[in-house]
């Protein structure tokens, strides 16, 4: 099961760091992404697998807006 919500990097030395999920702070491997403090990351099995480029709530709104054009 993947962690659906992104977490915020609050501490990092490049390889590992602390990631905050709504107040839950977890030690995470950060070696597979280029994330600095303040960035949001997707996490899977204790490892950040991607930095999140934009807010998901916004993205959902924009997808709906675009769906007509995408599927045309």
């Amino acid at each position, binding site marked *: 099961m993947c962690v659906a919500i992104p977490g915020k990097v609050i501490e990092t030395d490049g390889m590992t760091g602390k990631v905050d999920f*709504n107040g839950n702070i977890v030690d995470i491997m950060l070696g597979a992404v280029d994330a600095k403090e303040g960035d949001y990351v997707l996490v899977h099995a204790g490892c950040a697998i991607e930095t999140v480029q934009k807010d998901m709530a916004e993205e959902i709104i924009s997808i709906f807006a675009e769906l007509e054009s995408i599927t045309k």
Partner: protein
Amino acid sequence: MKVNLAHGSGGNATRELISNLFKKYFSNEFLDRLEDSACLPPTAYPLAMTTDSYVITPIVFPGGNIGKLAVCGTANDLWMVGAEPQYITAGFILEEGLELEVLEAAVKTMAQTAKEINVKIVTGDTKVIEGSGGLYINTAGLGFIKHRHQLGAERIKAGDSIIVSGTLGNHQSCIFAQRMKIENKITSDCACLGSMVEALLNSGLGLRIMRDITRGGLGTVLNEVAEAGKISIQIEEKLIPIDPEVKGFCDILGLDPIYMANEGKFMVIVDSRDEEKALEILRKNSLGKMAGVIGKVTETGNQLVTVKTKLGGSRIIDVLQGEGLPRIC
């Protein structure tokens, strides 16, 4: 000092434990006689009896410890059937190597909690097993049923309102976070529900049934109630009270708050005409600030529990399957 097998021998070490610890903290006129059984005065009320064993790891956690659980949990089960908790028995199973200080802290908390709710711990037992410092406590409770006539699954009707007394998932999130060393500020909701319950029972409102929402979570409790009352239930996902931090915790581990254990929450079914008054009573209590109506009894006969999701979809809620343990991958 650590617990060793001698503490469970029944001889001198056991007696020292009893007098230095159990008698010291629990002392009351019934326990102090240290007879084979506690001898208690008669009562005219019908009786309620319940038992639970407490095996929680860690023994001490934010918001409480095993001792607090052992008193609250058993007292809560008595309140749920409209009984007033009176007496509690305490069976301790100690693993060799347990620090006596840890045991003492638990015992002290049990005594305090019992005092707060005016319950007496009247008899006990201690056994020591091989192991590595674990502590298990069983409590059995005896209550006097003063309000039984108001409660019963058979009183539930279609249209009745389902109320939960507060946010869900705090206890289990707190415990898992401790075990998995995830930092957060979530504390267990471990609490005695008596003040809320008694206020409801004394209110004259149309109450139907109460259940504390412990292991198995809301989903399991609702299914049990649906089965017992031969009714169906529909709740709304967005009405379920949940702390954002708990929500975040559940998201990390793929846990569903509907199935998570609580130790200071209950659900009560009330006549829908009384739901506002019931909420008012609950919210007046510091433990019930987040109480809310989460759904309705929809029909009788079918025994199905469904939830309307945030997107407006509908899904069936069964009892908890499996262990309710987190998986990560």
